[in-house]
């Protein structure tokens, strides 16, 4: 506990350096701006900006990425409230009530409760991260390869099978990602896999190319294909921006409950923010004194899920920083961000680069404060971003997608991959396949394989080693259970079918 406080104080001394503050400011500003653009979530925002930061100082860039991550979440909720096109699935719930509030002329309070709720949640969850991360690091240090392998299997199952609409489609997405992870030279044996004689494939497939292709190009194609069928309208922000006394009274408990759901669930390898936001919405619907307002713009239905969303974003950083385990698409991209500098998150990073890790955590607090200060006064600016004509917006997004890809890897082959992944993303969107499992599969697949082979080498090939450690055995049992759990979670997909 005391160690945490001390380490965090050290972190603040890093994060308060003027250049780091500037990086954080640029990050939250860019993150919010890009996050506000419809159809762009935090994962794509970071992926687009990853190549740009290639030559910058690692600590500064990672602080910037974290700012982009948090900023993207804020920006995303603005979009859901004002035009009902959530940039990511976690904001879907916000759109339910938030867009109704905006239509009823209460867009201001909806934006305010979402911004302040996100601030409260972000603050508490980041404190949680600072307190629990060292403790988890202590435990993680004792993990053997078999434990890591089991942990990754749990992540695979939960990310793809447990919480989606259809385990079949989630697993399909995961396995295509795993297949893409095979491409390139195997690190342990030097064997080339799935390279088909193309030299560019020997290095494997870049996570950013896959993510930018799936998210940016795929999304642009998808939006263009249905443009005539689903026109968007921006709700103007009318009336006061501020929350009334009653709004505050109705918001603060949902904020805290949302945080209490979001942080722990986000920390588990349970696949991002959908579950906590959904749970928070259901709980608020049940506890509210104004049940008649739900479905017509109830402020609790914005406050709770938004808090849960942001708390789980901080929660996702827990397995990422302490174990190197990404459990959402955004976390997978952030991991790629670390790897671009040759840094590997995990217990070792806490020991070797405490300045970086704790500087990053401290900067999350700063980013949070910056966001709440920036967001509400600048709401007029963000709304103007929403007014960029759609053709130019998506044309611009594709230009940045192509630029980022060539800047990272100057070869036409990389651009062809970008196009292929874009087409794949388009088809997956049309047939309702989730995209995050593929990104997680690409990045975690090779890591899981390495851990498995290490575990088997230690045991001289005895597969029993995989379940000898009680932790690994428990985790594998959880994974097996989670594969069956979708049947128990049927209620969730029914809910989605109703509200979608």
């Amino acid at each position: 506990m005391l160690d945490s406080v001390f380490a965090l104080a050290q972190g603040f001394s890093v994060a308060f350096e003027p250049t780091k503050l500037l990086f954080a400011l640029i990050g939250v500003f860019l993150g919010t701006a890009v996050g506000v653009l419809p159809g762009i979530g935090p994962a794509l925002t970071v992926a687009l900006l990853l190549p740009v930061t290639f030559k910058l100082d690692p600590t500064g860039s990672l602080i910037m990425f974290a700012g982009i991550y948090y900023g993207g979440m804020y920006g995303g909720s603005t979009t859901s409230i004002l035009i009902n096109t959530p940039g990511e699935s976690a904001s879907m719930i916000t759109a339910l009530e938030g867009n109704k509030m905006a239509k009823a002329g209460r867009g201001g309070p909806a934006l305010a409760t979402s911004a302040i709720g996100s601030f409260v949640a972000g603050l508490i969850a980041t404190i949680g991260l600072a307190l629990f991360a060292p403790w988890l690091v202590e435990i993680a240090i004792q993990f053997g390869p078999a434990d890591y392998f089991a942990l990754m299997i749990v992540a695979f199952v939960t990310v793809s099978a447990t919480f989606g609409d259809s385990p079949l489609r989630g697993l399909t997405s995961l396995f295509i990602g795993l297949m893409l992870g095979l491409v390139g030279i195997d690190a342990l044996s030097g064997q080339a896999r799935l390279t088909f004689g193309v030299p560019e494939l020997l290095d494997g497939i870049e996570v950013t190319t896959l993510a930018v292709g799936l998210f940016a190009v795929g999304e642009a194609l998808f939006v263009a294909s249905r443009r005539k069928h689903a026109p968007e309208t921006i709700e103007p922000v009318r009336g006061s921006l501020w929350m009334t006394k009653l709004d505050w009274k109705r918001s603060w408990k949902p904020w805290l409950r949302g945080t209490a759901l979001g942080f722990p669930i986000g920390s588990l390898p349970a696949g991002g923010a959908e579950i906590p936001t959904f749970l928070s919405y259901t709980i608020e619907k049940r506890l509210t004194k104004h049940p008649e307002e739900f479905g017509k713009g109830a402020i609790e239905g914005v406050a709770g899920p938004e808090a849960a969303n942001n708390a789980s974003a901080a929660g996702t950083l827990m397995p990422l920083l302490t174990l190197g385990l990404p459990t959402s698409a955004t976390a997978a991209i952030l991991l790629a961000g670390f790897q671009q500098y040759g840094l590997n998150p995990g217990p070792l990073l806490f020991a070797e680069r405490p300045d970086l890790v704790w500087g990053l955590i401290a900067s999350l607090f700063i980013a949070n404060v910056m966001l709440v200060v920036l967001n509400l006064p600048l709401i007029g600016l963000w709304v103007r971003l929403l007014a960029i004509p759609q053709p130019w917006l998506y044309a611009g997004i594709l230009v940045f997608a192509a630029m980022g890809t060539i800047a990272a890897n100057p070869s036409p082959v990389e651009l062809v991959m970008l196009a292929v992944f874009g087409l794949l993303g388009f088809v997956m969107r049309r047939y309702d396949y989730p995209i995050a499992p593929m990104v997680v599969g690409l990045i975690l697949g090779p890591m899981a394989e390495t851990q498995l082979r290490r575990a088997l080498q230690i045991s001289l090939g005895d597969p029993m080693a995989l379940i000898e450690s009680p932790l690994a055995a428990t985790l594998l049992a959880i994974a097996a259970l989670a594969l069956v759990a979708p049947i128990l979670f049927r209620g969730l997909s029914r809910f989605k079918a109703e509200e979608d």
Partner: protein
Amino acid sequence: MTQEEDGRQGGRRGDPAGFVIAAGLLALAGAVARDAMGMGAVSSYAGIGPSAASWTVAAGLAALAVGTIVSAVRGRIPVPEQSDNAAVLTILAGIAAMIATISIGGGFILAMALLFGLTARGFGRRALATDLGIGVVLGLLVYLGFTKLLALSLPQGPIERLF
């Protein structure tokens, strides 16, 4: 949004799309398996070689193909809403033009102008000349910003060599 607005309806029994997806998954499984067969026996004194993961993925993809066929027969494949194919093809043409321009050394700015102009057209803009012009300006700004400020290298062509 209700289901009608979203345009997705429950699936049809025996929807051909499901079989096409299943065939695609089988083809991928086959490619991975063929690749794994080519690896031969790798001497690894303990544990497993590089082909084990390939076999696992191939088996998984094949199993998922079977699952997709089952769900197609049962009518569980979502029916996508109508697609504006002309728009999609226009954007793909823009991407192809961009890749071709860069491959033949036409340079970054020209490539981005083509990508920008054709994408905007795919989204319903009719003023292609204006959009190409905007694309040139955007490409130029990005090029100068990134090569001069961030020292990143971007593909050069006739226009880029002027700077």
